C-alpha cells in the first residue's frame, strides 16, 4: 500500500528548485532582450547625433550672423514692425469684421442645412416620379411634389450662396488690412529659409530643443521592446533594385546598410570628423544627389564591395590597407577578417578597381589614376599576351618582332639579354624568365644556360634577311643628339636611366612607349639603326614606331648618336658554352611527353646538335610563351599560355593556390595577386623559419613560369587594382555610362590614341604631353635656362594641345594632315610623324573622336566665303595691321617681322585648315582655348569712343565698332582671305639656318645666333 502522503520527491525542495529555475529563466529571458537591444551600431548613431546637433547649432549660429549682416533682412524686419503697428492700430476694425464673419458663418450653416434637407427630399421625389412614369404610382401628384421640391432646393441653394459671397467680401477686407504684414513675413521667411530648415532639423534631433511631449516621445521610441515601432536609432539602408548581389542560384537586390554607422557619409560638414562619420571625400562624383553616382541609385558596396547587409564592423567585411592598419583595427575594433564572404570590402588602395566594372571602355584617368596606371602597365607589360583579357584580345604585341633578328644583333647579345634583361637596361619591360627564385640553383642554372642557347638558336636560324641601305656617312653624333632631343623621339622613348624615386603615372608611362634608348651600341649596329629609323615598317611591319621622315643626313646623325652609348662591361661578359649532354636531357624531356623512352632515344640519336637546339628552342618558346609579346616565325597561331584573367577577381579565393604561404600571406585575393606579380614563382617555394626558401618537388617543365617584371610597390598596387577590377558582375544598362554615339566614338578614339601614344606628345583635356619636360631641357641646351623655364616658349615649341581640335579644324584638312603632315607652326622642331600603319578608317575614328568630343555631330560643310570688298574684310585688314599679326604670322610666303622664336602658323593655311566659328572663340580668349599660348587676344577698339575709333581705325572699323563680335568676325574674314603659298618650309629652313631662332639670351643682349 502506498501511503497517501508518500512522495518520490520532497515537494518543498522541488518548490525551491522551481523558484530558482524560474528566476534563472526570467533573468536569461531579459538577457535575450538585452542582447537583442544592444546592437553594435547604436553607439555610433548616438555619437553621431551629438555631432549633428553640434554641427547644426554651429550652422544656425552662422546663418544667424549671416542674416544679421544682411541689410535686406534688417530692412524687412523694420517693414514687419511697421506693418504690425499698423495692424495694432486697426484692431477695432478687424474685430468687428471678424465678428461679422462669425455671425455670417452661423447663418450659412443654417441655410446650408435647409438646402441639404430640400435636396434629399427632392431626390426622393425624383425617384417617386420616375417610378410613376414606369407605372407605379400617381404621375400627377408625384410630378407636382417633385417640381415643388426642385424649386425649394434651388432657392435655398441660392440663399446659402449669397451668404458665402458676403463672407468672402469680409475675408478680403481682412486680407487687405493684413497684406503688408504678410508680404514682409513672406520675404523674411524666404530669406531665412535655410536657417529655418536648420532650426526645424534641430528640434527634431536635439532633445533640448524639443517640446515636453516630444521629449517624452524621444525617450519612449527607443525603449527596449517598444523600439520596433518607430525608433530614432535604426538600421538605415538603401535598396538598389537593379544592381543584384549574386547569390549563385538567384540575384537579390543590393541592400547597403553602411550608412547605419557611416552616418555623415553623404552630408557635407563632417569632412574633418573621424570615421565612421566622415563625409565622403568626393561628394560631387559619388553619393551626392546631383553626382553621377547618387547614393540611392548606386549604394556603397557596388564600388567598395563588402557585405552591404552587415551592420557590424566585422560582419560588413572591412578590409585594412596594410598590416599596421590591421593591427590597429584588431586592437581597437576587435577586427577579424570575415571568412565566409566571397567579396570582402576592397582596401581603400584598391578601390579604383571597381571603376573598371562600368568604365572599361574609357578609363577616366583623372578620377582613377591608379587604375589607369595599372592598365598602362598591363598594356606595356603585355599581360594580355599570355592571359586572355576581355577588351585587349586584339591589342598588338608589345615586344619587337623577331623575324629578322639576325640583322639587328648578335647571338651573344641575345643570349645575355634573355638571361637577364634588366642587367643591361634596368627599366626594361622585357621580364626575367631565368635566375628566378625557383631556378637559380646551380642545377637549374646549368639547364637555363642551355635553354637560352636553344631559344637563341631557334630565333637566329629562322631569321629572315633584312635588306639594309648603306650608311651615307659616319654621321655626326652631336647633331644626332640635338635631333633626338628636338624631333619628338622623346615622346615615346627615354634616353636617360629611369629615376627610381620618381612616382609613375599614366603620363610617365607614355615615355616608356618605346624602349629606353641607352646602350644601343652594345646591342646593334649603326647601320641597322639607320635603316630602322628611316623605315621602321620595313623591319617589322606591325611596329608601332612611326616614320619621322628623316633625311639621310638626319638618320645617320641620329644613328651615330644612339650607337655611341655602349656598355663595355656587358659586352665583355662571356656566354657559357653549349653543353650537349644537358641539351639532350632537355630535348628528351620534350620528346618524352609524347613518345616512349625507346622512341625518344632513337630520335635523339638521329638528331644533330643544330636540330636539337632548334627543336628545344621551339618547344621552349612555347613553354615560356615568348611569342605572346614577340612576333616569332612558327608561332602565328599559338594560343595564350596563361590563365584567362577577364574575370579573375570573381574567382573564388579557394581557387588561388596559396601553397605554403598560408600563414605568410593574408588570405585575400589582392594580397595573392600582388605577391604573384611581385614574385611570380614564389608559390613554388616553401618558406623557412630563417626567411630562406626551399623548393617544392617539381620537374623543370612543371615549375611556375610566369616571368618577373621587377615592378615597384606603386606599380604592383596599380596592377593589383586592375586585376581586382576584372570581375564578372552583371551591371544593368541603367547603371552603365550612356552608350550613345559620342561615348562610343570617344572610347574607340581613345583606344587608338593609347595604342599609338598620341598623348606622349599631345595633351588632350589636360592629360598627356609627356614630352614637354624634354622640350624644355632641349630649349635649355640651345638657348638658356630662362628660356627653358618660360612656359609660353616651351609650349610654343611643344606639340600642340588638342583640346578643341574637333571644333577647331576642318575634318578634310585633318585627314590630309594625318596622312601627310605639313608644317603649321614654322618654328616647331618637333615633327608630327607619319603613321603609315594607320588606315583611313583608323584616322576617321580619331577625327570622329575629336569631333564628337567637342559636340560636332553634323558632317562639316564649308560654307564660309569672304568678299574682299566687304566692310568686314576691310575692317579686319585694319585691325590685323594695327594688331601686328604679321609680326608673328606668315602671310603666304611673306615672312613675319619678328624673330623665329615667336613665329606662328601661316595665315594662308586658315581657309583650308580652321573652322570659322572656332576662330571667333579663339580670338575672344586664346588662353581659354589653349592655356599658355603665346597668341595674344587681338585688340579690338569696341570700348573706345566712336570718334576716336573713326579717327585712328578708319571708317570700316567704326561701322562695326559697337559689336565686338562683328569686329572679331572682321579679323576672321581677313585671315580667311589671306592667300599665298601654304608651304613655307624652305623659307623657314633657310631662315633658321641663317639667323637661328633668335632667343633672347639673358647674358647676351643681342638676338641669339644658334648655329642651326
Amino acid at each position, binding site marked *: *500500500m*502506498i501511503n497517501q502522503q*508518500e*512522495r*518520490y*520527491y520532497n*515537494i518543498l525542495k*522541488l518548490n525551491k*528548485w*522551481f523558484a530558482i*529555475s*524560474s528566476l*534563472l*529563466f526570467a533573468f*536569461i*529571458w531579459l*538577457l*535575450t532582450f538585452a*542582447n537583442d537591444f544592444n546592437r553594435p551600431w547604436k553607439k555610433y548613431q548616438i555619437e553621431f547625433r551629438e555631432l549633428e546637433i553640434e554641427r547644426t547649432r554651429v550652422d544656425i549660429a552662422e546663418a544667424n550672423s549671416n542674416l544679421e549682416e544682411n541689410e535686406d533682412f534688417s530692412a524687412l524686419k523694420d517693414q514687419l514692425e511697421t506693418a504690425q503697428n499698423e495692424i495694432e492700430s486697426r484692431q477695432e476694425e478687424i474685430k468687428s469684421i471678424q465678428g461679422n464673419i462669425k455671425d455670417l458663418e452661423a447663418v450659412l450653416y443654417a441655410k446650408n442645412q435647409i438646402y441639404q434637407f430640400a435636396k434629399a427630399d427632392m431626390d426622393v421625389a425624383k425617384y417617386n416620379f420616375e417610378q410613376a412614369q414606369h407605372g407605379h404610382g400617381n404621375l400627377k401628384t408625384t410630378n407636382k411634389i417633385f417640381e415643388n421640391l426642385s424649386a425649394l432646393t434651388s432657392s435655398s441653394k441660392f440663399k446659402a450662396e449669397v451668404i458665402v459671397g458676403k463672407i468672402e467680401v469680409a475675408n478680403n477686407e481682412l486680407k487687405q488690412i493684413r497684406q503688408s504684414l504678410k508680404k514682409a513675413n513672406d520675404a523674411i521667411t524666404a530669406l531665412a529659409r535655410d536657417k529655418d530648415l536648420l532650426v526645424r532639423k534641430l528640434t527634431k534631433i536635439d532633445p533640448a530643443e524639443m517640446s515636453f511631449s516630444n521629449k517624452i516621445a524621444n525617450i519612449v521610441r527607443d525603449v527596449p521592446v517598444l523600439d520596433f515601432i518607430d525608433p530614432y536609432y535604426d538600421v538605415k539602408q538603401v535598396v538598389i533594385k537593379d544592381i543584384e548581389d*549574386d*547569390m*549563385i*542560384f538567384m540575384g537579390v537586390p543590393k541592400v547597403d546598410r553602411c550608412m547605419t554607422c557611416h552616418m555623415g557619409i553623404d552630408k557635407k560638414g563632417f569632412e574633418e570628423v573621424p570615421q565612421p562619420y566622415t563625409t565622403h571625400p568626393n561628394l560631387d562624383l559619388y553619393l551626392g544627389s546631383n553626382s553621377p553616382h547618387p547614393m540611392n541609385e548606386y549604394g556603397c558596396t557596388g564600388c567598395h564591395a563588402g557585405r552591404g547587409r552587415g551592420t557590424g564592423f566585422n560582419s560588413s567585411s572591412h578590409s585594412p590597407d596594410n598590416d599596421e592598419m590591421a593591427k590597429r583595427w584588431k586592437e581597437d575594433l576587435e577586427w577579424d577578417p570575415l571568412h*565566409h*564572404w*566571397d567579396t570582402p570590402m576592397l582596401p581603400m588602395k584598391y578601390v579604383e578597381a571597381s571603376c573598371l566594372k562600368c568604365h572599361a571602355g574609357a578609363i577616366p584617368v583623372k578620377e582613377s589614376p591608379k587604375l589607369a596606371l595599372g592598365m598602362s602597365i598591363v598594356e606595356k607589360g603585355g599581360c594580355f599576351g599570355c592571359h586572355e583579357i576581355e577588351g585587349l584580345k586584339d591589342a598588338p604585341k608589345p615586344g619587337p618582332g623577331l623575324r629578322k633578328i639576325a640583322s639587328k644583333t648578335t647571338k651573344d647579345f641575345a643570349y645575355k639579354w634573355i638571361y637577364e634583361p634588366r642587367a643591361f637596361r634596368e627599366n626594361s619591360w622585357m621580364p626575367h624568365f631565368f635566375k628566378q627564385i625557383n631556378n637559380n640553383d646551380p642545377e637549374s642554372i646549368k639547364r637555363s644556360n642551355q635553354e637560352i642557347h636553344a631559344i637563341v638558336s631557334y630565333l637566329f636560324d629562322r631569321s629572315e634577311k633584312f635588306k639594309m641601305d648603306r650608311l651615307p656617312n659616319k654621321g655626326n653624333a652631336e647633331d644626332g643628339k640635338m635631333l633626338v632631343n628636338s624631333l619628338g623621339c622623346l615622346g615615346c622613348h627615354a634616353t636617360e636611366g629611369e629615376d627610381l624615386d620618381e612616382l609613375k603615372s599614366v603620363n610617365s608611362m607614355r615615355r616608356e612607349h618605346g624602349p629606353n634608348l641607352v646602350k644601343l651600341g652594345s646591342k646593334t649596329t649603326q647601320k641597322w639603326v639607320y635603316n630602322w629609323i628611316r623605315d621602321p615598317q620595313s623591319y617589322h611591319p606591325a611596329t608601332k614606331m612611326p616614320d619621322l621622315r628623316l633625311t639621310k643626313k638626319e638618320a645617320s646623325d641620329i644613328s651615330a648618336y644612339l650607337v655611341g652609348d655602349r656598355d663595355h662591361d656587358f659586352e665583355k661578359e662571356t656566354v657559357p658554352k653549349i653543353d650537349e649532354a644537358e641539351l639532350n636531357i632537355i630535348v628528351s624531356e620534350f620528346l618524352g611527353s609524347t613518345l616512349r623512352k625507346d622512341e625518344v632515344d632513337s630520335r635523339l640519336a638521329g638528331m644533330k646538335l643544330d636540330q636539337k637546339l632548334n627543336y628545344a628552342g621551339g618547344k621552349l618558346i612555347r613553354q615560356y610563351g615568348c611569342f605572346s609579346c614577340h612576333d616569332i616565325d612558327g608561332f602565328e597561331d599559338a594560343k595564350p599560355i596563361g590563365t584567362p584573367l577577364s574575370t579573375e577577381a570573381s574567382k*573564388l579565393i*579557394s581557387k588561388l593556390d596559396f601553397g605554403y604561404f598560408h600563414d605568410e600571406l593574408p588570405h585575400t585575393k589582392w594580397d595573392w595577386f600582388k605577391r604573384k606579380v611581385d614574385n611570380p614563382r614564389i608559390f613554388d617555394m616553401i618558406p623557412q623559419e630563417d626567411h630562406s626558401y626551399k623548393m617544392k618537388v617539381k620537374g623543370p617543365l612543371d615549375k611556375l613560369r610566369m616571368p618577373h617584371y621587377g615592378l615597384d610597390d606603386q606599380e604592383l598596387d596599380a596592377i593589383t587594382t586592375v586585376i581586382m577590377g576584372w570581375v564578372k558582375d552583371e551591371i544593368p544598362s541603367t547603371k552603365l555610362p550612356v552608350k550613345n554615339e559620342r561615348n562610343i566614338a570617344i572610347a574607340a578614339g581613345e583606344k587608338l590614341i593609347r595604342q599609338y601614344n598620341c598623348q606622349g606628345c599631345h595633351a588632350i583635356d589636360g592629360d598627356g604631353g609627356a614630352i614637354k619636360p624634354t622640350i624644355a631641357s632641349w630649349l635649355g641646351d640651345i638657348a638658356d635656362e630662362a628660356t627653358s623655364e618660360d612656359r609660353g616658349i616651351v609650349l610654343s615649341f611643344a606639340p600642340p594641345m588638342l583640346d578643341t581640335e574637333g571644333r577647331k579644324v576642318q575634318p578634310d584638312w585633318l585627314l590630309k594632315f594625318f596622312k601627310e603632315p605639313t608644317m603649321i607652326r614654322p618654328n616647331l622642331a618637333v615633327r608630327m610623324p607619319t603613321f603609315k600603319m594607320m588606315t583611313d578608317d583608323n584616322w576617321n575614328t580619331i577625327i570622329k573622336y575629336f569631333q564628337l568630343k567637342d559636340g560636332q555631330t553634323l558632317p562639316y560643310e564649308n560654307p564660309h566665303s569672304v568678299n574682299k570688298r566687304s566692310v568686314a574684310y576691310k575692317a579686319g585688314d585694319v585691325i590685323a595691321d594695327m594688331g601686328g599679326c604679321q609680326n608673328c604670322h606668315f602671310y603666304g610666303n611673306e615672312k613675319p617681322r619678328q624673330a623665329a622664336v615667336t613665329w606662328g602658323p601661316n595665315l594662308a593655311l586658315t581657309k583650308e585648315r580652321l573652322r570659322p566659328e572656332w576662330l571667333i572663340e579663339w580670338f575672344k580668349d586664346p588662353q581659354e582655348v589653349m592655356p599658355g599660348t603665346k597668341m595674344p587676344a587681338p585688340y579690338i577698339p569696341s570700348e573706345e569712343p566712336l570718334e576716336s575709333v573713326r579717327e585712328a581705325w578708319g571708317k570700316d572699323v567704326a561701322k562695326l565698332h559697337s559689336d565686338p563680335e562683328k569686329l572679331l568676325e572682321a579679323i576672321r574674314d581677313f585671315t580667311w582671305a589671306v592667300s599665298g603659298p601654304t608651304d613655307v618650309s624652305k623659307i623657314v629652313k633657310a631662315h633658321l639656318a641663317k639667323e637661328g631662332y633668335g632667343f633672347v639670351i639673358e647674358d647676351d643682349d643681342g638676338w641669339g645666333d644658334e648655329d642651326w
Partner: protein
Amino acid sequence: METFKHLIDTLSKPTILVTFTFLIFFFIFPPTAWFEKWHRRLKFDGLWNKKSLWIFSAILIGFFVFGLSDPDFSAIMLKPDNVPIAGLIFLVYFFTWLSMSQAYRNDELVEAGKPVDEQYDAPNDKVLVWPDLVYVELISIILLSAFMLVWSIGLPAPLEEPANPSESPNPAKAPWYFLGLQEMLVYFDPWMAGVVLPSLIIVGLMAIPYLDNNPGGSGYYSFKNRKLSISIFMFGWLVLWDLLIVIGTVLRGPNWNFFGPFEYWDSHKVEALTNVNLSEFIYVKWMSTGLPGNILFREIWGIILVLGYFLILPPLLAKTKLKDIFERLGTARYSLFIVLILAALTLPIKMYLRWMFNLKYIISIPEYFFNF
C-alpha cells in the same frame, strides 16, 4: 606538450583507435563467462564505481581544457556545429557509467537476495503523477529552455557564404547523427552503405524483442543476466555508431582524410588511395593474368566468399561455438540473429580489409551497379 599532442594524433589514427577499441571492448562489456573472468581479473569492473567516474570525468575535462589551448583542436571543437558532439562525448560516457553502475549494484543486491533499487510494488501499477512527475518535468522544461537561450545567444548560428555548386564545402559533412552512415560510405558501395545496411539496422532494432526473450533482469538495470545482449547492443551503439560519429566529426578533415585532433586541416594533404577489388587480387596479383571477361567467372571468388560467409558460416557456428544460442533460439530466430550479427560485422571486417590490403570490393560488378 607537442610530444603528447603527437602521441594523441598517432593514437587517433583509425587503425589504432578502432583496433584498440575492438581489443578492449569485450573485456569491458564481457559477453561470455570467459570474458567476464578476465573482466574482473583486469579490474575493468572498477570502471563503474564512483571513483572512476570522477577520475575519468577529470581526465576527459582535463583533456578538453588542455586541447582547447591548441588552435587546431579548438578550431574543430568550438565550431558551433561540433559543440553538440563534444557534449555527446560527455553525455554518452556519463549515461553509460550510470546505467552500468546501477546494473552492477542491482546484480549485487540480487545476489544478496535483496530487492533491487527499482523494485516497486505499487498496487494496480499506480504511479505518482501530480505533483511528482509533472513538477519535475516542468522544472526540467524551464531549465532546458534557459539553457537553450544561453546557447543560442552564446553560439550564434554558424552562417556561411551563399551556397555555391562550384564550391562545395570541404569536407562536406552530413548532419552529425548521420556521420556514422557517412563513414560507412568509405568502405561500402553507396547502395550498401546508404540503403541496405541502414535498413538492416532498423530491421535489427525491430527484431530485438523477438530475439531477446530472456525475462531475466527485465524492468531494472542489470548486467549478469543479459551479458550477451548488452554486450552486442553496446558494440553496435558505442563502437559502430557513436565512435563513427566522433570519428566523422573530429577526425575527418578536408577530402575526407583522417586528421588527428591536434593536426592542422591541410586541404592539400595527400593520401594514397589506390584500392583494388578482390578479383584483381586473385587474378592480377596472385595468378599474374588478366581479368577474365566473363563477369561471373571474374567475380566467382568474391561470390563464393560472401555466400560462404552468410550461408555456410551460420550452420557451422550453430554446430560449434554458438551451440547454446542455437539451441536456445531455435532455427528461425537463430538464422535471423546470426544474419544480423554477420551483417553488422561486415563493417569492421571491411574496415580492416581496406586498411590492410587496400581492398575495395569483395564482389565488384559495376556493370550492374552491384558492389559488395
